[in-house]
């Protein structure tokens, strides 16, 4: 909870901690998720799944940063980052992938090698 990035979310779209979105989120701007999203996420900007957030969706974004729980396939055009304490189940596809110490991951990794 003492993470610096959480105090200043740069995202234009924020899904709050008590919000549940059941469906599709598409856009051209950064997205921060503190709550729950089920369905599909596709944005040209960054996607941040904050600690405590639950995402059960296929995610497409420029950079995808996971601190919470993510179930689904992730395609990042730039970078996928799994922070400590994060849990991800699904296939990851990105040119750069960062696993922090403590991150939990299950699935395939595709870095276009």
């Amino acid at each position, binding site marked *: 909870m003492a993470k610096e990035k959480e105090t200043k*979310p740069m995202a234009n779209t*924020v899904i709050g*901690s008590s919000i*549940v979105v059941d*469906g599709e*989120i*598409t*856009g051209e*701007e950064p997205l921060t998720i503190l709550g729950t999203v089920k369905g599909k996420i596709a944005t040209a900007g960054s996607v941040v799944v904050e600690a405590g957030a639950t995402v059960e969706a296929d995610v497409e974004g420029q950079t995808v940063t996971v601190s919470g729980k993510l179930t689904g396939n992730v395609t990042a055009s730039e970078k996928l980052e799994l922070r400590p304490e994060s849990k991800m189940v699904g296939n990851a596809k990105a040119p750069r992938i960062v696993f922090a110490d403590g991150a939990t991951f299950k699935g395939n990794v595709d870095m276009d090698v």
Partner: protein
Amino acid sequence: MADIQTVIGVETRVSGEIRGGEDLVVKGRVDGKIQLTHALTVDKGAIVQADVDVKNLVVSGTLVGNIVASESVRLHASARVVGDLASPRVMMESGAAYRGRVDMGDIEAARAAVASRAVARPAASSLASARERPAPPRVGAPPRTAVLAGKAAPRFVAPTAGERPVVASVSPSAPPAFPRVAGAVGGMAPAWAKKKVRRR
């Protein structure tokens, strides 16, 4: 963390259902359904095409869908709203455009009506549900018209069946009656005219 407001940004579109227990600001677009125990703000430029069930609703943008607000609804001057509205307090600024029914009475009944409509909707996809939006009134309408037609038809049939003998009895008596009256008037008219002429 709790201070962070939920925002659907200008360049973001959500199709599906949003529900939760905090304030929501829509600056972009939402298609589907919004259910909150707090306030929903539809900012200027935002488009919301959804059934809305919230506590407080503030609209500066465009909102299409049925609205249930348990506390209040405020339509600002730039608001464009189409849909039935149920809330105990409704405020509309000068310039706000609204089309639909307003119910400031029984909110639970309106909520139940919206819920029953929503039950049929999730089966279809979000796009299909948007296309089907005109359907619920149509689905509701045919039974009403059928009931009306069912009631109206006997009403029309019964009077005509009953009137036929009346008409038949009146029509023979009427033609002789008119000539008689006409003749009487025709006979009287010159007399009155003569009297008037005499008086003048």
